């Protein structure tokens, strides 16, 4: 194998008679390492003293702003493009998140502009050989086959596996597409990345996302990382972590490996994999034992800590050591560090989430922060580092088996809400789905429209399992793997079998991926070349809930097409394009991104995706240098007072000019300026005990106590109804803050200093989950036989749900507990 690759893109560059040197001759001073860098307190760069050659900038060299596509930190990328060729990459020193920095991946994104190894044109397998075909042929053949399967086995026999590599607009369109096709058999990588975080965290205090930001870590007095290795997975975040560390914050890393992050830790604790719960409860044991908990915070803002105390009491240091392998002294040290250095931040990644008891782990982490009163404060929070560049946005808006965009769920009300936004007839939409009723796993019968689809982690079983064990008409017969690497999923030998059993396998990806080679299929397999995010434009949501706008760097390479165009072509072929794109302009089969952003703004009230219009996002992108690198607030300039990326929730309509919420649940600011309370999401009382906050409210709130979520009725009770305009009243009547399309309910609540979603306590007991208070259970494949019986995996009842019998009941449980936001 000869791997020497001398030049950049021989094909692209030479075809157009261009070369990089042309650029260099004309390149001017442009940004430079210079003045901008020295303003930044820890950029630690200085201007080159060398005599710069004075050159004039020729107009045809464009400097284009984009965002790295490799992880969720959201690093700004500056691309230099001449005549359509990406000829240079410069550090984005003035970008508030990365300050010019990149990791190995970010520093090499320009290579994607060459794409030597890309899938270059649509291909299909004929007799086991790959043959080039046209787009039209591909869409026609695939579409015909799908319609045939739909006819024979119903819409649920086609599985649409989407991606966190889509931008927000494409993710949203993908979810909408599946709705119009008539199935919830759609999902994406978030399921196998942070789904347990989203479920665990949202069920603790309302929203399932990173609460603070990478930059806010500057304010931390202690940093705890468990099951995360940011030095390799999120290297640029280490810049912010080091800043805190160099200001004196101890860095505790809990990981079974001495990772590259652990190498820089003040304390590294090795735990036996899969024992996070006893470890955290063991730390809480020391905290309670020494009365280090924040009693006032718990009284005002936490429900159920007493139950936690009971569970914690049994995790004495000796027992913890037995199970986790961590000594009393080590754990005491870590607990003491966190208790005496406040506020402290708590960071976790896949090491905590990808477990059979992942939801217990994530809730244990939250409880730890609640006990110390580290929530809703700068420097504190649960800073959950997400994976892909737009996995947060795709989770919020996109391909999910258990919910419509914005975590509205799948109940009839949710469908009606979105049908209204889409301006289509609900009955027509409903008619797209299988009409039969199926066991939902609890003995009740439902339509598949109202049941969670098969999750991405289990599509294999949807193909291989006996038909009668699946709550849908037939097995999955066609798979569309759209921006998904199947080698990120477990059980490859079974996956191979599953792929081989399919009637139709379609891969839509910039690269052929493992899906092209793992199986031994010979026919009915298609590879369609998709464009990367540098070849299109739109918004994305980074881990810290900040939205950023990417401009298009280059035209789609070879015959590749952007995801939204391919979606349109499929919709057209499958016969629902007119309905689906009713309010989205389509030109030459390419839907207009801005129209999709508008539609997202129109419908996504639950998590505040309503205020981030494309105009505001584009303006922020042009002015990213005006944002403070710690607080992320714009200081002066056209975005004055806004937070970078208008981090969601960015309440109300854009006319309200909400600045975004940089830190969730921070009561020291008014809601109108990014303050927040814990969400009242789980009712107002439980067993006669109030779930609403006590004596705690966000700054300037007119209600000085806990309150439930806002609805038209509540406004009337409070006497605030008449503050709505007549037009707002019309739309708001009978609605609540999530479904009022006028935004009036949110506007009036915020005007009175209140959070639209109420003011409640965070809860330590999630009564709908298998383990209401997080407990330890040994992994299914444990290396400690002596522990297996003591800390069993779920009993028979839950064990059966793991196996595909009642496949939908596993999913059903998800929707029942509002795993959503």
């Amino acid at each position, binding site marked *: 194998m000869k791997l020497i690759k001398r030049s950049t893109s021989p094909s692209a560059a030479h075809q157009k008679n261009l070369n990089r040197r042309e650029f260099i001759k004309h390149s001017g001073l442009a940004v430079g390492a210079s003045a901008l860098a020295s303003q930044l307190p820890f950029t630690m760069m200085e201007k080159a003293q060398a005599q710069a050659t004075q050159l004039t900038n020729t107009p045809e060299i464009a400097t284009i702003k984009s965002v790295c596509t490799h992880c969720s930190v959201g690093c700004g990328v500056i691309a230099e493009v001449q005549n359509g060729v990406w000829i240079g990459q410069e550090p984005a020193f003035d970008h508030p998140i990365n300050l010019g920095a990149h990791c190995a991946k970010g520093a090499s994104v320009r290579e994607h502009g060459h794409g030597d190894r890309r899938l270059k044109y649509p291909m299909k397998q004929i007799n086991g050989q790959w043959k080039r075909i046209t787009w039209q042929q591909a869409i026609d053949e695939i579409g015909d086959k799908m319609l045939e399967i739909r006819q024979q086995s119903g819409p649920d026999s086609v599985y649409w596996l989407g991606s966190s590599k889509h931008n927000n607009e494409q993710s949203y369109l993908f979810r909408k597409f599946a709705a119009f096709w008539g199935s919830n058999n759609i999902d994406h990588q978030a399921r*196998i990345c942070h789904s347990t975080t989203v479920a665990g965290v949202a069920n603790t205090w309302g929203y399932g996302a990173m609460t603070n930001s990478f930059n806010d870590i500057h304010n931390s007095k202690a940093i705890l990382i468990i099951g995360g290795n940011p030095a390799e997975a999120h290297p640029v975040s280490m810049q912010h972590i080091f800043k805190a560390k160099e200001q004196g914050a101890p860095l505790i890393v809990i990981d079974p*490996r001495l990772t590259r992050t652990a190498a820089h830790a003040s304390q590294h604790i090795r735990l036996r994999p899969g024992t996070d719960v006893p470890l955290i409860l063991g730390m809480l044991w020391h905290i309670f034992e020494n009365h280090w908990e924040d009693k006032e915070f718990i009284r005002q803002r936490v429900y159920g800590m007493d139950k936690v105390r009971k569970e914690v009491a049994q995790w004495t240091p000796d027992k913890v050591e037995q199970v986790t392998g961590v000594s009393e002294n080590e754990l005491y040290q870590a607990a003491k560090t966190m208790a005496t250095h406040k506020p402290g931040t708590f960071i976790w990644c896949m090491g905590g989430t990808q477990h059979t008891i992942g939801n217990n782990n994530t809730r244990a982490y939250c409880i730890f922060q609640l006990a110390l009163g580290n929530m809703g404060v700068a420097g504190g929070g649960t800073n959950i580092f997400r994976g892909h560049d737009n996995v947060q946005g795709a989770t919020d808006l996109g391909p999910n088996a258990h919910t419509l965009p914005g975590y509205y769920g799948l109940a009839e009300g949710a469908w009606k809400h979105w049908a209204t936004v889409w301006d289509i007839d609900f009955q027509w939409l409903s008619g797209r789905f299988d009409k039969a009723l199926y066991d939902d796993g609890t003995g009740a019968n439902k339509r598949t429209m109202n049941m969670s689809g098969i999750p991405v982690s289990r599509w294999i079983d949807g193909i291989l399992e006996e038909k009668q064990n699946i709550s849908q008409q037939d097995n999955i017969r066609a798979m569309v793997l759209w921006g998904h690497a199947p080698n990120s999923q*477990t059980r490859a030998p079974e996956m191979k079998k599953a792929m081989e059993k399919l009637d139709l396998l379609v891969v839509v990806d910039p690269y052929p991926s493992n899906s092209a080679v793992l199986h031994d299929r010979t026919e009915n397999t298609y590879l369609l070349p998709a464009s990367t995010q540098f070849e299109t434009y739109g918004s994305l949501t980074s881990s810290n809930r900040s939205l950023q706008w990417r401009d298009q760097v280059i035209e789609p390479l070879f015959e590749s097409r952007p995801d939204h165009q391919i979606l349109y072509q499929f919709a057209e072929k499958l016969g629902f394009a007119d309905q689906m794109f009713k309010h989205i302009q389509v030109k030459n089969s390419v839907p207009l991104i801005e129209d999709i952003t508008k539609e997202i703004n129109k419908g996504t009230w639950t998590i505040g995706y309503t205020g981030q219009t494309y105009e505001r996002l584009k303006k922020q992108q042009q002015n990213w240098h005006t944002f403070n690198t710690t607080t992320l607030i714009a200081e002066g300039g056209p975005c004055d007072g806004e937070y970078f990326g208008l981090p969601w929730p960015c309440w109300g309509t854009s006319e309200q000019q909400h600045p975004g919420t940089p830190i969730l649940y921070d009561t020291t600011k008014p809601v109108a300026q990014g303050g927040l309370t814990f969400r009242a999401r789980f009712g107002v009382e439980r067993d006669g005990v109030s779930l609403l906050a006590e004596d705690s409210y966000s700054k300037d709130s007119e209600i000085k106590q806990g309150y439930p979520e806002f609805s038209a009725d509540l406004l009337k009770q409070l006497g605030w109804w008449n503050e709505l305009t007549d037009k707002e009243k019309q739309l708001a009547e009978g609605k609540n803050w999530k479904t009022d399309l006028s935004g009036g309910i949110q506007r009036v609540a915020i005007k009175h200093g209140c959070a639209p979603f109420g003011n409640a306590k965070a809860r330590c007991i999630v009564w709908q989950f298998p383990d209401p208070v997080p407990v330890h259970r040994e992994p299914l494949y444990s290396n400690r036989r002596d522990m297996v019986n003591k800390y069993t995996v779920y009993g028979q009842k839950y064990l059966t749900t793991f196996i595909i019998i009642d496949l939908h009941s596993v999913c059903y449980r998800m929707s029942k507990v509002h795993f959503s936001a």
Partner: protein
Amino acid sequence: MTSGRLVEYEGGGDETRSNPWLAELQQQMFVEINPADANNAGVKHGEQVWVEGPEGGKIKVMAFVTNRVGRGLVFMPFHFAGHYQGKDLRNKYPEGCDPYILGESCNTVFTYGYDSVTAMQETKVSLCRLQKA
């Protein structure tokens, strides 16, 4: 047995293993083994080793003997693909579309197990047997 990431690659790795600037930096799929476990299995640093999972999958990878992992634990990155149970699948890619670097996927040996609420897969704890290849 546990799994995780490398800085050079992302996710399934098809894109990053196709980028020569990155691919040059990580050219081999490997398994990190503690020296004690390596000695018990009779495997030396740099040798090929079979990692067998409890559900029938097995992969042939390079042994990386290191104290980075403790005794009784092995670690593998999950970004590799293109080899399957000892077989190189390079000739199955469409011509000119094969990533520069191929390797065994660790998920060939990772096993059944899902979160009770979200159906998250278990990729951080499973069991394996090491055998010199």
